[in-house]
């Protein structure tokens, strides 16, 4: 049993029918394993053990169907999860902190982890907050915004400006700290647009972000209206699907008078892919540009200096030093 003060508690199983989250779970378990490895058989016995607690039912593997027994279905499912891992080995290359050994039967942590390997572990933790001690979650989510901001800078041309709009304790820009109304006025000014709200429209105790975490814009040298900008949201929880429009043009057009439509991006630490590299479920994405773990790592890996601190977060190091007990 994992102690409460530990960073992670991996006792419960991931959600049903979400192989990408199960692949994460296998990685998290491998990091906590005494030998830093996880076999298919280890996962199978872990899942079967939880059958008595009714959990296997909650992951939707409890019914026999099409002649397949529960054990057959479990075996197939675990195979699918390991296929996800095979995809990740190719997609993340050297940044992936694991390798498959023993003819693909064992996922093993690399012995020495580079800063980029640790950055991967950071995204892994950020995508699995349900397993993380509540006291650590806020630190992870605010750091995830910083990582997203750096990734966005690498995506855009050098003359792009970025703003951390979310209420993030790491924000050093005084213009975007404090009351929401002040932040909206300043944003309109920076974008050379006109605010549509009055100060009294927003509760003065509201120091939130109205669903907007990051803004990037490409300024012209003049001050006239009209330029390119992107509104971004950072989402570490699985309800990103229904919240992906919180920073869209539609959601914000009653706050600022925009000259033109603009795109919005959703940054998420999930590896939202199937085993072939396509989106895990494209129906969940609508009119949003998704930046998942694969895109984040690709954007950051060539400029690791900007994010070295993130991979070396105490939370990451502490997690890497934690080990689950054997029994």
């Amino acid at each position: 049993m994992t102690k409460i003060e530990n960073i992670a508690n991996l006792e419960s199983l991931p959600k049903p029918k979400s192989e990408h989250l199960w692949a994460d779970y296998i990685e998290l378990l491998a990091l906590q394993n005494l030998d830093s490895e996880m076999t298919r058989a280890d996962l199978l016995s872990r899942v079967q053990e939880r059958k008595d607690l009714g959990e296997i039912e909650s992951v939707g593997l409890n019914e026999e169907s099409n002649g397949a027994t529960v054990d057959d279905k479990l075996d197939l499912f675990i195979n699918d999860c390991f296929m996800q891992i095979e995809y990740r080995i190719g997609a993340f290359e050297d940044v992936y902190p694991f390798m498959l050994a023993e003819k693909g039967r064992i996922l093993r942590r690399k012995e020495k982890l580079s800063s980029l390997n640790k950055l991967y572990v950071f995204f892994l933790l950020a995508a699995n907050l349900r397993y993380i001690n509540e006291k650590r979650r806020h630190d992870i989510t605010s750091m995830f915004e910083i990582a997203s901001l750096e990734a966005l800078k690498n995506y855009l041309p050098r003359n792009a400006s970025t703003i951390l709009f979310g209420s993030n304790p790491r924000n050093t820009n005084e213009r975007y700290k404090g009351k929401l109304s002040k932040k909206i006025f300043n944003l309109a000014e920076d974008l050379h647009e006109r605010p549509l709200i009055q100060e009294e429209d927003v509760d003065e105790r509201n120091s939130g972000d109205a669903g907007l975490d990051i803004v990037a814009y490409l300024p012209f040298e003049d001050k006239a209206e009209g330029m390119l900008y992107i509104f971004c949201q950072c989402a570490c929880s699985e309800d990103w699907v229904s919240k992906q429009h919180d920073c869209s043009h539609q959601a914000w057009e009653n706050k600022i008078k925009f000259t033109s439509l603009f795109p919005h991006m959703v940054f998420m630490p999930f590896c939202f892919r199937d085993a072939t590299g396509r989106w895990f479920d494209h129906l969940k994405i609508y009119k949003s540009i998704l930046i998942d773990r694969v895109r984040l790592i690709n954007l950051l890996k060539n400029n690791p200096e900007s994010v070295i601190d993130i991979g070396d977060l105490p939370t990451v190091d502490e997690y890497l030093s934690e080990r689950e007990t054997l029994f």
Partner: protein
Amino acid sequence: MVTTADVSIRFIPVDELKFDPQNPRLPGNFDAKDEHEVLRWMLGDASLIELMGSIGQQGYFPGEPLLGVRDHDGKVVIVEGNRRLASTKLLLHPELAPIKKVAVQKVALEAREKPSTLPVLIYPKREDILSYLGYRHVTGIKAWDPLAKARYLQELYDIEPEVNGGQESKFRALARKIGSRADVVAKLLTGLALYEKIEECDFFDIKGLDESHINFSVLTTALNYSNIFSFLGLTSANDPSLQGLEIENLSDLTNWLFAKTHEGKTRIGESRNLSLLSRIVSHNQALKIWKDGASLDYAITFTETPVEIFRKSLFESQAQLKTARDYSHQVAKPEKSYMDILNDIRAIARDVMVIMEERQKLE
């Protein structure tokens, strides 16, 4: 046909026991005579660590001898019991582990027992054992149901000596004995404690309720939801002392889970509805309405859930319709039913729109 008179049970030194090169578990293209390779494969595939823990904790149970045949070199090939043999070999020689070295070393180091001989029933020929193997590995031994397992664990718990580190160490010791994990042991024992409390309270005088009508798994499943164990007054689902238990709430939960209505159903129905119940019990107004007899579907509308469902359904419908539009040009012969469905969708969308507009005006 081999009779019991033809076989003899012997205690044979572990070093004189060999793995079965024809073990059906081993992959085809595999040098099964290489002990190192067999251990490598078994450690990666057969959850040996748990078995090592169990044998290391309580020794080898002589009531379950290995089954083997004498080889031409005088040693014995184990046809049945290769996992047990591998576990014992690793307890004696942890340095043989090609993988999982740290875990093997740790279990061997902590083992109280390291049997140097194992009981083996020696048969004249391999074929004499084969028919039995089919029953054991294909049909299999019927595992106990969760309630039986929990009762067995309770017996073990009661005879387990007190150890430093309190309850958690005791759970861990039991887990090691049965080759499981401490949190699973704790949760099964907590489920059993609740079950016995219900029994002690005479099933809260619920009509027709007795032991045969209580599904133990439903109780342990309910304990997976933190809102439900908090509702019971418990601070953890892993504490069989049930500290803080509010009997009235246990009475309510028992009613909801197991009491049959006049239609012969329980109020919760299928166990997947426990996730709805967990939301209801954490919300005062929803709980009050649910206690007053409202249905699950109605009570849930008093939680945050409906707004979530609305948002999610709206986005999903939009995405699904977009997919249908993308493929619509591939439909050469539209069926009449497609038109009916599309009309229906238009009407539903209009209804939702009207409601939303009304709400906006009220705002």
